[in-house]
């Protein structure tokens, strides 16, 4: 369970996130939405320590130090980025392997002094990473350099990386951006199946309404850094403030 209370992020005079509180329980899928620039990504950055922030965060009841990248990661909270972040010169397999949270036998000392056990552990990891690639449908690109992937493929590579990390909570920043309808649908299915198989609780930042609708149990809406609405998807969509600020008075009709 991830519980964030009164998170506040300031950049000079700009208050990008203003006392936002939010809880993601195990197995739960929570949507975080809001107009552009309302502070969604900044909120995730604050949780994961990439920007300095005030407030408190607890993972499974244990407090987390803010402002330290990786602090929550070691407590089982992983994330993806709104612009996919992969290492262009590593192969896809290697990119995934980097996401493994297991520390044992991955140090300089192990490389020099404990070769046999290290190699044994490595082989096991390759398998795991390959499975993660299969999970997101990139297995046949396993030995391709990540720099060769298209935008959407990079997204899936990132997803494979966090998949291997077996997070307890996963923060996804616009996971469906750059995917077409079919691919979004696949992602929906992928995420539900994963969750049902004991996968992570999810915090979803997304602008694709149907995508959210299918997945989310609850939603929280930000505007200008402040929470303006929260609740079941149906309630939230019906909220006039959400209509005004986010959806526009008329929903896009194709």
């Amino acid at each position, binding site marked *: 369970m991830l519980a964030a209370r009164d998170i506040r992020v300031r950049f000079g005079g700009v208050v990008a996130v203003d006392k936002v509180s939010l809880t993601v329980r195990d197995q739960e899928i929570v949507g975080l939405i809001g107009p552009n620039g309302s502070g969604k990504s900044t909120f995730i950055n604050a949780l994961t320590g990439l920007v300095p922030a005030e407030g408190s965060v607890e993972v499974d009841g244990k407090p987390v130090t803010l402002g330290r990248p990786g602090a929550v990661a070691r407590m089982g909270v992983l994330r993806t980025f709104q612009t996919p972040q992969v290492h262009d010169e590593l192969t896809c397999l290697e990119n995934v392997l980097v996401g493994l949270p297991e520390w044992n036998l991955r140090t300089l000392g192990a490389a020099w002094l404990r070769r046999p056990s290290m190699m044994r552990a490595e082989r096991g990891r390759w398998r795991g990473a390959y499975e993660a690639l*299969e999970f997101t449908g990139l297995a046949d690109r396993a030995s391709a350099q990540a720099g060769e992937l298209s935008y959407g493929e990079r997204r899936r590579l990132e997803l494979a990386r966090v998949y291997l990390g077996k997070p307890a909570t996963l923060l996804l920043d616009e996971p469906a951006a750059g995917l077409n309808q079919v691919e979004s649908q696949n992602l929906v299915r992928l995420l539900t199946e994963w969750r049902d198989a004991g996968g992570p609780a999810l915090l979803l930042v997304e602008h694709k309404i149907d995508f959210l609708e299918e997945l989310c149990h609850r939603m929280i809406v930000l505007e200008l850094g402040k929470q303006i609405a929260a609740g079941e998807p149906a309630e939230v969509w019906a909220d006039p403030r959400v209509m005004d600020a986010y959806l526009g008075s008329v929903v896009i009709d194709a």
Partner: protein
Amino acid sequence: MLELKDLRVAYGHTQAVDGIGLTVGPGEAVALLGANGAGKTSTLRAISRLLPSDGELTFDGADVSRLAPEELARRGLVHVPEGRRVFASLTVHDNLLVGRTAQARRDALFSPDDVYDLFPALVPLRKRHGWALSGGEQQMVAIGRGLLASPRLLMLDEPSLGLAPIVVKAVYQALAEIKQRVSILLVEQNATLALTLCDRGYVLLSGRVVLSGAAAELGDREALLDSYLGHGGGAAGDSDDGTTEGDHRTVADPDAADATTR
């Protein structure tokens, strides 16, 4: 206005674009659709001369396949690239003004104020640096910058990416408006949305056009989906895109495919 014949782009041994032919007429809006990795971005980049390519490339009746990207832009073929590519060290306003460089000697179609009207969210951000912007804000700047170039043909690579629905709507309304004066070549994942704007469309699969035609025809969901999956257009079914293969049936479920259309 723009005409490609047998365009080919290769990255080493991979043929990302494998003989595409395509036209965009004056005042026409054309959609370029396809799954991840189909070659859409590669096609646009090849047109802009950012990638070396084979094939014929004519703009305004002139062969432009040897032109430098910046000269092509100055002739009015303006490309709003994938990934926004906002100038990080420039303010929002300066970003927009740089857009004017490509206007060259053409009459201005847009002023910065027009852009601020289109994206009111940018108004308070005028002085903010590009690197501080949120994803969607960057997208607005990128589109605005492209408009300020007074394009004659505007190429947009996934303009709705990361934009809130209300902004997507605004963008598409604006595009519909300028369509009369500016030709548009649009890459968009949201096919339904794209086809409301566009007159015609092409669907790519593994670097080839597998389906093309008027928007209304393409709007036929079944054909579109089939072509996405590599079953419709007669192209080899071995898409290097693994996501789709085992899932044909689920996806073809009409309800599930009822994407953003609420």
